[in-house]
């Protein structure tokens, strides 16, 4: 039986995980295997960082949805978390006028078909101008500032731009979007730094091919193909390391899974509910 059935939902997280370690992809996204080993030595700090990232995203979403700025300011002032407050104040200085003023969608999930499968993206903010421009803004709370080049090559960048180019017209109700009029902005709250990444028709075509090839490769893989990564440095911050026998992996702080975990937690939150 195929491990991955038609209609399977891929996301930037799952694809990125696959590219970094096939086994982790299998464990986390297919087997949904809990393995409650701490990702980092200081687990409390790690969890606090996750929680702070989620709260920050929530506050920004509220601001963009039109909740009274005074009310939000009071909450930020009372939060008692300096880092969170600093991010929030930094957000206050973010120049929103650089994104189009037309339709603005906050926390927008979009799904597009990709071959027999589906690809999912969840946008912090997408702004569309009536003339066909669209800008994605993604708020980042990473502890380290990566390079522009790294961000441009990220799976997230490709997936987000590709999904928007394919399905943005569903949101606007207008004509299909021209990829060359799309842009992705990463804004790093701790550094007040912004990376702007343009898009093009050529990249759209190339990404489509590459993403399709990738999901087809994953879907066609037999169970034994989901092997541990050859780069043991990936394992140092992976919770599966005692399952894989990789406890002694060399540590490289730039290779943690934190960013993925924050986004993953945001997605999961959507799905959690209580039966009553």
């Amino acid at each position, binding site marked *: 039986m195929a491990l991955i059935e038609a209609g399977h939902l891929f996301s930037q997280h799952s694809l990125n995980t696959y590219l970094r370690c096939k086994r982790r992809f299998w464990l986390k996204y297919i*087997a949904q295997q809990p393995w*409650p*080993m701490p990702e980092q030595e200081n687990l409390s700090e790690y969890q606090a960082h996750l929680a702070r990232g989620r709260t920050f995203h929530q506050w920004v979403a509220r601001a963009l949805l039109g909740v009274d700025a005074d*009310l939000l300011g009071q909450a930020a002032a009372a939060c008692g978390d300096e880092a969170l407050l600093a991010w929030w104040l930094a957000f206050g200085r973010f120049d929103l006028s650089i994104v189009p003023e037309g339709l603005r969608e906050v926390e927008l999930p979009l*799904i597009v078909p990709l071959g027999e499968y589906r690809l999912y993206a969840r946008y912090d903010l997408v702004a569309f101008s009536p003339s066909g421009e669209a800008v994605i803004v993604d708020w980042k709370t990473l502890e380290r500032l990566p390079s522009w080049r790294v961000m441009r090559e990220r799976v997230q960048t490709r997936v987000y731009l590709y999904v928007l180019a394919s399905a943005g017209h*569903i949101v606007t109700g207008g004509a299909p979007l021209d990829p060359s009029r799309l842009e992705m902005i990463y804004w790093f709250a701790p550094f007040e730094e912004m990376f702007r990444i343009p898009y093009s028709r050529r990249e759209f075509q190339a990404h489509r091919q590459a993403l399709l090839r990738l999901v087809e490769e994953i879907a066609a893989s037999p169970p034994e193909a989901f092997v541990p990564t050859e780069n043991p440095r990936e394992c140092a911050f992976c919770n599966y390391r005692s399952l894989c026998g990789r406890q002694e992996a060399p540590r490289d702080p730039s290779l943690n899974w934190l960013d993925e975990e924050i986004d993953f937690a945001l997605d999961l939150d959507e799905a959690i509910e209580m039966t009553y």
Partner: protein
Amino acid sequence: MAPFDDLAQELTPEQRRVVSFAREGGASLLVRGLPGTGKTTALVRRLAAMVSEGRRPYEILVLVPQRAPGDRFERALSVLQAPTRGGAEIVTFYSLSRRGVALFWPLVAAQAGFAHPEREPVFLTLETAQYYMWRIVEPLIREQGYFNDLAIPRGRLLSQLIDNLNKSALVGFDHTDIYARLRGAWVGAQDRLHRFWQAQDCATRFRAFCLEHNLLDFSLTTEVYCRYLLANLVYRRYVQARYRHLIVDNLEENVPVAQDFIAWMLTWCQSAVLALDERGGHRIFLGADAEGALEVGQRCQETLSLSRLLKPTEHLLAFVDAVNANIGARAAPAAPQGEAHRATVVSGGGETRYWISMLRWVAEQVAALVAQGTAPGEIALIAPYVSDVMRFAVEEELARYDIPVHLLRPATPLRDDPIVRGLLILLCLAHPHWALEFGGEPYALSEEDVALALKVALAGLDPLRARYLALEAWRGEGLLPLADSAPARLWERVGFQVREPYETLRSWLETYRQGPPEPLDILLSRLFGDLLSRPGFGFYQQPEAARAYGRLVESTRKFREAVMSDGEDPTRVAREYVQLVLRGVASAEYLLDWPRPPRPDAVILGPAYAYITRDMRSEYQFWLDLGSDGWLNRPNQPLTHPYVLSRRWPIGRPWRDVEEEEARRETLARVLTGLAARCNRGLYLAFSELGLDGAEQRGRLQMAIVTVLARIKRYA
């Protein structure tokens, strides 16, 4: 392919009408019919059609009463070759409420009376809500004798107190009216009124506590959403800009405030199609309001009835109509066209005296059906409730024929999982000073407890050897060092390979005890990473066991997040958690814990209620234990009342035996009709003269069935 049947099925003309029903102009349609007449399929196809048309699927809200039916909509979307918005629109009313309150919290927090509107809210799980309720109730029991004449387990006491609050929110009455409503309906002894007052007092205190600490349990989330957020202009504009089309499945299983929301949407949305199961309303214990559903449905501009049933189902329904008439239910026949004597009904009554022989007969019949080519997954064994004894007995009987069983059941309390229990005991061993108390009585660990903890933590221990090790390793406090002092034969009997892991575990716990205390989730994760997932320990290469471990870590984390204040000593919270779970409070369900879909190679075993509310269908059904009164009785809930705490029951109107009798009959009739409507071919009826407890069984349902069967026989 089975999961996508909804998209593959040939539609009837009525179903096609549902699919093509207008998308614009405020059009609204009510679709009615018995279960199995294709309403959900029609709704799924309508959603798929709208999405395929590219009609801004972004704006379609699909409202379902619980998550399971929502999967059919999600699955259909998953195979469409059309860009769709993410699955977020297929929601329950609670998840809509919770998301709304979380996102727009600053808009309503002060108005709703929260003491710290500037702080983020904390949403409670069932576990944490029970914990806080317990903190309120426990001193009242201890110091003021609350509920002292009530002999019900703590978990059930708490769930009824919380249930009252939930009912008030879902029905939409003020939580301070619980007492007036319960008192007004009570016709029995006066001392019960006192208990109602105490229940009210607990609800009032609990609510005040939540408001003081920014805690939102299920009831308060729902109330804040309905009373404040839906009245807020910013939010109303957001909802109106966001959703333009409405699809509602199982309207009759939804709660009054959700029905109010639907009624509001009908006044402005572009299109709405609502589906209503006739004879539904099974979730009445969870606040479902079938009459209210009909009232909302009648606001639709058009109504369409779907009536096409499979012939065998129609005959089975006619059979059930006759049974229902015999027990005195008032409902009109569900299948007037059906012929009871043509129903495929096989009775095992008369021949079976003992309960176990009834199950043996059932297993024989199941095996015969499987031998004739029916897939086990197409067979359902249904009882009023499924005890562990029944489950084991059924599994054993069917194992003779190599047929596995898939059990339908709600979330298991954490402590029922031996792995979780073992880990909790291990935590007690790490904190020997804890002095646990259950119901005011000190709780001392036993050797069995310690043996279980050692068996879970160390690899290669069977219960006998774990017991032997526990005898030597534990003298009432923490684990003892055994390297030098153990009797010579200890490791011979227990196994030398256990020696080193045991010592490592013991010294790890010892080191932990000497360091600063840690929150439980962090302690458990470290213990797992440092030791238990490594060679020689219980979770080494044990992914299935790790699922239970993961469940416990998740539960402890949520508990800490909801309960621990900044700077607080984590051991107090840890102790409270362990006490709470060992006392058997249900665990909150979360994503990874959701029941997996039944396997096609396993016979389904479950309570009637779970089978119906998950909207299952089978080729053959076996109704078990028909002589049991469990079919007719409802759970004993001395502190709450599903009928009285509803919109249908005016304050002050007494609820007498005659109402109780009638409610039971009507509920049973609804259950039987709900079951028969979900059976494609044949029904097997299983009785025994003696029940599981050896007592004579002559339940009213059994009598009615026997009478109807005799009549049919004569007719045939």
